[in-house]
């Protein structure tokens, strides 16, 4: 069914920033992404990982020890998946620095979330403003097009 590659489709999802919802977000994104038939299983696994890293960051760093909401918007256009993960949390004062390998503001963490995302995404954009929130844009295309 190569036709799906031209269809534009989207989903918008909103949920509270609690660890219970990270798995939900992964499953939802993996299922939505599989509408692009030319994604192979390993790419769907990459999408699960990308989702998990971005959503976990919003929960831990965006709303540390306080309630909040995470928004997820995924779009399929021209055979490319775009995922936007957004919070209205604490924000990142220095995005460039935050994206460096091993940089973390929590000592129980690795600081490798953004590094993993950069490795797996075709494109990664991070927009953030202190005390306003963070928006992570991830684009992924099938390596083998249909």
């Amino acid at each position, binding site marked *: 069914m190569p036709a799906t590659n031209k269809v534009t489709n989207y989903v918008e999802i909103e949920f509270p920033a609690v*660890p*219970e919802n*990270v*798995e939900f977000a*992964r499953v939802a994104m993996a299922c939505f992404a599989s509408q692009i038939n030319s994604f192979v299983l*390993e790419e769907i*696994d990459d999408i*699960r*990982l990308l989702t*998990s*890293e971005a959503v*976990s960051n919003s*929960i*831990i760093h965006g709303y540390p020890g306080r309630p909040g909401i995470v928004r997820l918007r995924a779009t399929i256009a021209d055979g490319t998946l775009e995922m936007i993960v957004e919070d209205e949390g604490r924000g990142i004062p220095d995005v460039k620095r935050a994206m460096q*390998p091993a940089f973390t503001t929590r000592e*129980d*963490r*690795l600081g*490798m*979330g953004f*590094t*993993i995302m950069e*490795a*797996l995404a075709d494109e990664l954009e991070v927009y953030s403003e202190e005390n306003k929130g963070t928006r992570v844009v991830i684009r992924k295309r099938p390596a083998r097009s249909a």
Partner: protein
Amino acid sequence: MRVDIEPLGDILLARVSGELDLRTAPEFRDTVDGALERDYRDINLLLLSMAGVTFLDSSGLGAVLGRYRRLSQRGGRVVVCSLPHQISKVFELAGLFKLIDAFDTEADAIAALRGGGAGCQQQTR
């Protein structure tokens, strides 16, 4: 997520399965630390056998690295084995193989831990 603990003499074998993420990492930590600090205080070699792990992200890696740090402090060692392809990829991307040796099978890992080898039988990735 599930951790099955089995003492093998001087080695504590922990077989991990399911998804290791932000939600399940605390349970993994509590189970493994509980075993090492309560039930098997004389053991300081930990083998994490991960054939059954279906998902792991950087929160899961953080939980693995936390056990590595704790055991290193008391002169112990942590190795991993039987990593599914996708899990091995996450370890690789995060550079964790620089700190933690990986083996193809439980037997390989046990032999290396007992021989004190530095992990030259490391899993092909």
